């Protein structure tokens, strides 16, 4: 066998062959390149055609392509906890009840519900004639099954707690579902907004390996069509939807992990919807060309960012120090610097404008002199030429930790660092990757202060975050806040159903939190969605813009995707 690869003859032949191949291929490659470029060119031109606003008649059809940063993970409601999965689940499934545009409960799969006089029993009257996407009828058996699934120890769900408080559940007839609680529980009603799963497909199956996790079958306005992992998820209108079929024919969630790319993709016409960053909203979307093609929206998001103090540390056990730090921080400056003004200073754990929000609490507007006075009073004094305050030989210095990947928190930390330096507090900032951050710092209580955010649940029950019984390892009151009055208010608040009676309890809670300052509440950012202008019927409300998604439509003449 001749192994000599570079034999003269074969090389010559090979070179000749290569030459021939190239002479054949190059003109073709050029042609292909030209063809692809020209195909692209005409397609793009069609896309940037200016859309007219004259025709606004409601019409069926068209596709909306939504940009999302992350892929979904699991499309079974009990197992999903990430935002992308929840968005899809929201289109495919229904709960018994849901929030309307003003964040009040309204019936969904349940037509109505009654709460017994003692507040312990809820009776849901289910809608008749609802079918699953595969044609099977929806009944109380599905609700019963979902409830059993939630309390089954084999189900790896994070939401079992509230269902476990149910003392007795029953389905006296196919269209009635009753639950009784040992004690009245205000947040109980919320738990029935979770997607109801189809019993006929899941009964007796192992939920962790169910094909429904990737191929969901629900009762919702859109039925699932296809999922190309890492690329897109496609949903199509459910013609038989009990609330009336949606106008838009198809919803596509396209996964674009980078916000800059997403924005370029939006401009090139590849996306119809995305959430803008403050920078994009404030600086890059004001051109007339952009405004002609897109509608921008702005409303407070259901999240707040705070700085929490580890109350196990002696330095932070003095309330005056925490108050002083709050006075020394200019929240408006953070909103302006970090969010470019697209947000508002936070004063407590509730969303401004929502019913539990108490506007009358101490808001700690920027007052460095008050901060200095409080620190002096607390015994932290500046001695000699030193710039950092001291008490009994110990410096007033601490480290703020926050997680990697959230620039807003890091920037807020930098601004705080500078402001605190001005009143004589030395602050270091450390940014740590999320998993290590939780494991090494937050869970073991191994930090001084941290900048983090919470989503604002619609029900004001903050038991898990503020109650002194939740300070254990890996629990959410990781700053170890203990206040007997707060404990009592939290226990009281979740046992009263009536909003009129609950409101004073949570007003009082906010006053105490503002006075105690376990957190310095920093800001509530705005949601900044943008939607292609051809979509009509969008209604901005306290709940945002997605609440009437089924009613969005594109007038016939403006429809872009015909198939």
């Amino acid at each position, binding site marked *: 066998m001749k192994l000599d690869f570079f034999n003269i003859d074969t090389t010559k032949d090979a070179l000749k062959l290569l030459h021939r191949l190239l002479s054949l291929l190059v003109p073709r490659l050029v042609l292909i390149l030209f063809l692809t470029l020209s195909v692209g060119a005409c397609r793009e031109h069609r896309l940037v055609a200016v859309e007219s606003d004259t025709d606004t008649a409601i019409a069926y059809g068209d596709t909306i392509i939504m940009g999302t940063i992350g*892929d979904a993970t699991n499309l079974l409601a009990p197992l999903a906890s990430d935002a992308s999965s929840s968005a899809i689940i929201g289109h495919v499934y229904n709960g018994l009840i849901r929030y309307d545009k003003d964040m009040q409960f309204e019936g969904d799969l349940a037509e109505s519900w009654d709460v017994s006089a003692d507040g312990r029993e809820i009776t849901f009257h289910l809608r008749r004639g609802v079918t699953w996407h595969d044609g099977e009828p929806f009944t109380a058996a599905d609700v019963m099954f979902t409830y059993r699934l939630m309390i089954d120890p084999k189900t*790896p769900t*994070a939401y*079992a707690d509230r269902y476990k408080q149910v003392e007795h559940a029953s389905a006296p007839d196919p269209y009635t579902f009753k639950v009784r609680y040992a004690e009245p529980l205000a947040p109980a009603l919320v738990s029935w907004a979770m997607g109801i799963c189809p019993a006929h497909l899941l009964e007796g199956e192992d939920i962790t390996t169910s094909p429904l*996790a990737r191929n969901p079958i629900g009762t919702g306005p859109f039925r699932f069509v296809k999922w190309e992992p*890492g690329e897109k998820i496609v949903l199509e209108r459910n013609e038989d939807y009990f609330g009336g079929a949606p106008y838009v024919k198809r919803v596509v969630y396209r996964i*674009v992990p980078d916000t800059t*790319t997403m924005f370029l993709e939006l401009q090139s016409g*590849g996306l119809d919807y995305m959430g803008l960053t403050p920078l994009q909203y404030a600086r890059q979307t004001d051109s007339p060309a952009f405004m002609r093609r897109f509608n921008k929206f702005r409303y407070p998001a259901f999240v707040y960012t705070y700085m929490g103090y580890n109350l196990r540390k002696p330095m932070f056990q003095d309330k005056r120090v925490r108050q002083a730090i709050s006075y020394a921080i200019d929240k408006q400056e953070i909103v302006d610097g970090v969010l470019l003004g697209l947000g508002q200073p936070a004063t407590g754990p509730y969303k401004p404008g929502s019913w539990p929000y108490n506007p009358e609490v101490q808001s700690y507007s920027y007052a460095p002199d008050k901060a200095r006075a409080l620190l002096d009073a607390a015994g932290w004094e500046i001695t000699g030429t030193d710039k950092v305050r001291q008490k009994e030989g110990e410096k007033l210095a601490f480290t703020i930790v926050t997680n990697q990947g959230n620039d807003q928190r890091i920037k807020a930390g930098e601004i705080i660092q500078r402001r605190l330096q001005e009143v004589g507090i030395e602050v270091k900032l450390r940014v740590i990757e999320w998993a290590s951050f939780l494991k090494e710092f937050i869970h073991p209580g191994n930090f001084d202060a941290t900048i983090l955010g919470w989503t604002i649940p619609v029900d004001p029950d903050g038991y898990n975050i503020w109650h002194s019984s939740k300070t254990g390892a890996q629990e959410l009151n990781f700053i170890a806040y203990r206040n007997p009055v707060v404990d009592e208010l939290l226990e009281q608040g979740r046992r009263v159903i009536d909003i009129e009676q609950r409101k004073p309890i949570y007003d009082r809670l906010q006053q105490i939190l503002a006075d105690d300052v376990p957190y310095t509440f920093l800001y509530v950012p705005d949601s900044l969605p943008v939607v292609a202008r051809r979509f009509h019927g969008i209604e901005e409300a306290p709940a945002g813009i997605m609440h009437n998604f089924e009613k969005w439509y594109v007038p016939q003449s403006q429809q872009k995707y015909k198939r």
Partner: protein
Amino acid sequence: MLIYIFKKLTQMVPLLLGITLISFMVIHLAPGEPTDLQTEMNPEASTELKERLRTEYGLDKPLLVQYTTWVKRLVQLDFGRSFSQDRRPVWDKIIERLPITLLINLLSMGLIIVTAVPLGIAAAVNRDSWFDRIATLLVFIGFAAPSFWLALLLMDWLGVYLGIVPVSGVKSFGYEYLSGIEQVLDVGHHLILPVFISAVGGVAGFSRYMRSNMLEVIRQDYILTARAKGLSERVVIGKHALRNALLPLITILGLAVPGLIGGSVIFESIFAIPGMGKLFYDGVMMRDYPLIMGILVIGAAMTLVGNMLADVGYALADPRIRRR
């Protein structure tokens, strides 16, 4: 030769086992567990779930026990199920990401070789000429330019402003409705930018390498002999010098084999390409041990195979090595 290959292959087994053991230990050393993240800072999550998941995943057992269970499964070519919320078999998750990554890497490797080899030779032959200087300058710019920055600039210019290439993704919306040839063209159209961007750094490095190889060879006595024989410059360079200058290419190609399944997370995020880089990155961030190990094992195996191919290729090409 066959015996040689067989020997190499048997040597690889303990090596692969060693690599997996070390990787297994190291990824478990990283703070945080998959269970922490599934219940991450959720105001409504209970801690009970975390304990249950730990038992279910076997994370409560000693590390060595976990490793042996993993190896036992691996021997049956079972990579296990992912620890992330979808709990899909790791193999499925890898296999759906692999083709696009392979395609881009092969195309960009092809582009690199096709452009870098002639560029390197031309630069070496015309050493210190204007061409060489400009090529050197461009190469260093290409080397130094951050690819994400270049990618964004080109996306804005070619994709948004001129609108001649798609900004991101690998398929157009409505791909299903295209005919076979149109589908190929569509993917090709989407890949123009990513392949170009991923080749830029490679072309820069590779042409430098080619240039220095060629310079090395040109200095040799046998080139002098060839010239003295009165051969034309084209024959001297094209035949005598080039063949020897290309030898190290084999090593480089061998080393590049594991790179074929790898992708950069920044690159893939920017172009919204569902490839291996993003899969691996997300796996690490989620501490999805079975997925991380699955990709590492494949990567390690390909590295070993690539090394072996390089050895064998070298032996085939260079008689001096074979005789040793």
